């Protein structure tokens, strides 16, 4: 009998499963794990921040330097006035932090609350606002963040996110990029929620300080006139869109029967020459 060599019909050394299916299964596993871990650790952060006292926070962030890109020099015009205004507002929303206000010369119209109790106001804000009440609302909004400990929450969640992605993939791996948009969406939504709560708090503070709610929506109206971002961006934006925030504020003003009276003009110190 002769031996007749033939090639095998089936290659047993390779799998015939669809690699795409495998990729999708593995990917969804990663994403699910990522989201669950992020959610759970996020809740842990929320739990932990309520237990950090202002003194403890001050101790933790005593070495925290306000990024130098914000600050060129102390004692910008209007600094004392703004500090006074903030201290007055602070009594209204019982934030027992020693809050320090710094003014950063910048085109940007914004303000940020940094860990350790420093609010940085970008001077572009003064060009956009017309009244002291409007300015007070912005400051009260940032104070609201302190009251809710949002600056700590934001930082804590940021740390969780970084730690998780490093844990999963080693730092800066391609796989992180796959999960990133999903996490960004939840992050943005969470942040929008916190912003809305800070708005609410700011409204209460404003009414407490001035006795009426005039100027509450001034900043958002001015911002809305400036630019209008696309539809998709709304999902990714960390701050609720201006229109929605104005509507929410107006509804609250109505519901709680707050007056709207004449607003005080913007202090002369901060009006740019």
């Amino acid at each position, binding site marked *: 009998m002769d031996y007749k060599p033939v090639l095998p019909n089936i290659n047993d050394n390779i799998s015939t499963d669809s*690699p795409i299916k495998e*990729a999708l299964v593995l990917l969804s596993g990663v994403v699910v794990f990522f989201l669950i871990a992020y959610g759970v650790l996020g809740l842990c952060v929320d739990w932990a921040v309520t237990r950090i006292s202002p003194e403890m926070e001050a101790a933790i962030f005593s070495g925290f330097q306000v990024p130098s890109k914000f600050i060129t020099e102390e004692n910008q015009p209007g600094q004392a006035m703004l500090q006074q205004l903030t201290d007055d507002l602070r009594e209204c929303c019982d934030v027992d932090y020693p809050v320090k206000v710094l003014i950063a010369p910048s085109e940007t119209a914004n303000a940020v609350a940094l860990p350790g109790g420093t609010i940085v106001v970008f001077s572009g804000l003064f060009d956009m606002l017309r009244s002291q009440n409007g300015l007070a609302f912005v400051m009260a909004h940032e104070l609201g963040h302190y009251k809710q400990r949002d600056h700590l929450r934001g930082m804590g969640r940021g740390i969780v996110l970084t730690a998780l992605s490093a844990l999963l993939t080693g730092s800066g791996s*391609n796989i992180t990029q796959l999960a990133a948009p999903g996490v960004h969406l939840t992050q943005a939504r969470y942040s929008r929620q916190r912003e809305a709560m800070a708005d609410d708090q700011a409204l209460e503070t404003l009414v407490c300080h001035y006795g009426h709610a005039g100027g509450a929506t001034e900043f958002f109206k001015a911002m809305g006139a400036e630019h209008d971002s696309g539809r998709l961006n709304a999902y990714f934006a960390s701050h609720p869109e201006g229109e929605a925030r104005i509507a929410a504020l107006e509804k609250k003003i109505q519901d709680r029967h707050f007056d709207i009276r004449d607003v005080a003009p913007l202090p002369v110190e901060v009006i740019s020459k």
Partner: protein
Amino acid sequence: MEQLIIFIVLIMMGYFFGRMAESRHYRSIKEREQFWMTRPAGSYKRVSDPKRTILKSELVSGNVVISVDYFKRIVAGLRNIFGGEVRVYETLVDRARREALLRLNESCEDADEIINLRIETSSIYKGRRKQVGSVEVLAFGTAVYFEQK
């Protein structure tokens, strides 16, 4: 966002081009294997018919380096997290092994038999993050030429 788009484009490119190259390679492999099938090649140290006179013997080798595509690299990266068979790399090794053997065969077209055949493999490129990027397979053996009857 841009990063993600680049990433997805890379993955899709990796998948389509990788798949194209793979099926083309397999077609070529099957065709050539059919051609070389009848010449004995084995790992024995002696020739199959000791009675025949050996005219000449020589060392022959064939080697190949094949790279994995971007798509497979990502899937293997995900597989690294969960563990298990890295199925996407199977074709890579299979192709490299068979191609190396074919090249060895093609290097000695007139030989009557290949004996003492060995195959070695190594990953020669580990990439930036120590991931296996491509595989090298080296096949070597002794080509034997008999005196024609």
